[in-house]
């Protein structure tokens, strides 16, 4: 390292400073919008994996199997390079070129659908960890299937899975860096670009690393607060 010529101030010069800001903005946009897809969709699929209806359960299981088992990088390529070719010609070229922010939008959808499969598994495991008697108790007092989920199972299941869901939310931020492979100028890609223009590789990637860590630490902090506010007193129930 002795010969390395440190040049921190260059990061504050234009256009590099602007690149970092816009890259960081894209990273946050991808992560938040992908989560906006993943959380509700994953919740529905996770719940669907625990219902009695076999067809519903089968569809949900198939979704999880497909999206969880294909590497995320491959999914990025599939959505960006393969899917548009399978669509009718006009629609395909719209997806690839003409829709607003084609690469960014594709990355958001891809990451959202992938993360949904992981959220679904967390939600399912939360629901399945609740003793069967709770479901019986809800049914015995006359609640219908929907009400048992709405008032009895889901409020408890989500409290149980807040810690693993936090990990998934962090994962969305970190996985958003793969969007660079389809040409999205997010934080990692901007850091690379700065490195190529200035050779200040340590500085550029240090900034990227620090920004990723800051965001994830902020998420962890927020989720701790949520966890504290929703904590159940004592254990879930006595015995099973």
């Amino acid at each position, binding site marked *: 390292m002795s010969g390395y010529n440190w040049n921190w101030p260059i990061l504050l010069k234009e256009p590099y400073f602007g690149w970092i800001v816009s890259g960081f903005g894209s990273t946050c946009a991808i992560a938040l919008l992908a989560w906006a897809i993943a959380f509700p969709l994953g919740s529905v699929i996770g719940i669907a994996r625990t219902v009695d209806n076999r067809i519903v359960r089968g569809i949900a299981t198939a979704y999880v199997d497909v999206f969880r088992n294909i590497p995320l990088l491959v999914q990025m390529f599939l959505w960006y390079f393969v899917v548009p070719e399978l669509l009718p010609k006009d629609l395909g070229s719209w997806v690839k070129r003409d829709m607003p922010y084609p690469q960014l939008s594709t990355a958001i959808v891809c990451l959202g659908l992938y993360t949904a499969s992981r959220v679904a598994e967390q939600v399912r495991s939360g629901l399945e960890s609740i003793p069967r008697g709770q479901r019986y*108790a809800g049914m*015995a*007092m*006359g609640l219908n299937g929907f009400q048992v989920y709405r008032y009895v199972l889901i409020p408890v299941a989500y409290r149980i899975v807040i810690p693993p869901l936090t990990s998934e939310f962090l994962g969305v931020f970190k996985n958003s860096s793969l969007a660079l492979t389809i040409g999205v100028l997010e934080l990692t890609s901007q850091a690379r670009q700065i490195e190529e223009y200035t050779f200040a590789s340590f500085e550029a990637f240090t900034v990227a690393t620090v920004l990723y860590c800051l965001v994830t630490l902020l998420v962890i902090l927020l989720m701790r607060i949520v966890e504290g506010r929703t904590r*159940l*007193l004592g*254990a879930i*129930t006595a015995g099973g």
Partner: protein
Amino acid sequence: MIELKNVDKWYGTFHVLDNCTMSIAKGEVVVICGPSGSGKSTLIKCVNGLEPFQKGIITVDGVSVGARETNLPKLRSRIGMVFQNFELFPHMTAAQNIVLAQQKVLGRDQAAADTKALALLDRMGLADHAAKYPAQLSGGQQQRVAIARALAMDPIAMLFDEPTSALDPEMISEVLDVMVALAEEGMTMAVVTHEMGFAHKVANRVVFMDQGAIVEDADKDAFFGTPRSERARLFLSKILRH
């Protein structure tokens, strides 16, 4: 009021309920006992359709439990059930536990449901605990909240599935006292329990089950006096010895 006719149930090839026939009249208290694994809990869960059964007929107040057209949630709302592990909802206070189904199933408004919940908690000797969560209550207190929760629906009958089995010995009597009072008020009750003292005191009939079959169905005095089956005699001698 509750009629079971030739009820059979299998888990795979395992015959859990073997041709069970029994009935409970209005105002009657029937204790169901027998060794563990004999099908008592399964039988009682079939009465409100929590467990499906494959053969036979169960009717409650004239409504067939197994019939496809039966509105099971509606039927269940008329039958109270108390579980071995209390099954209070951990994210709700005692009062909220009692209010939930009153509002969501019976459509009572908040004020009416609250009033009912507090009156029942008072009757259970738990007036001071309305705002506590289940984890802040002892087992005996939780089970009394669970009984109040079932009573809040104004049930036509109550099913108890080993209501004292998960309790520490010193808490059993506080739950049994509530059940005795309920029986003396004329509630129709089916109680799966090993508490023979309770059976002695308030049961009209005792049903003894073994290996999924109803081996004996007798008046209380006949059962404790001269149980006819060898299996029931053996069971009684084991649990009454101490």
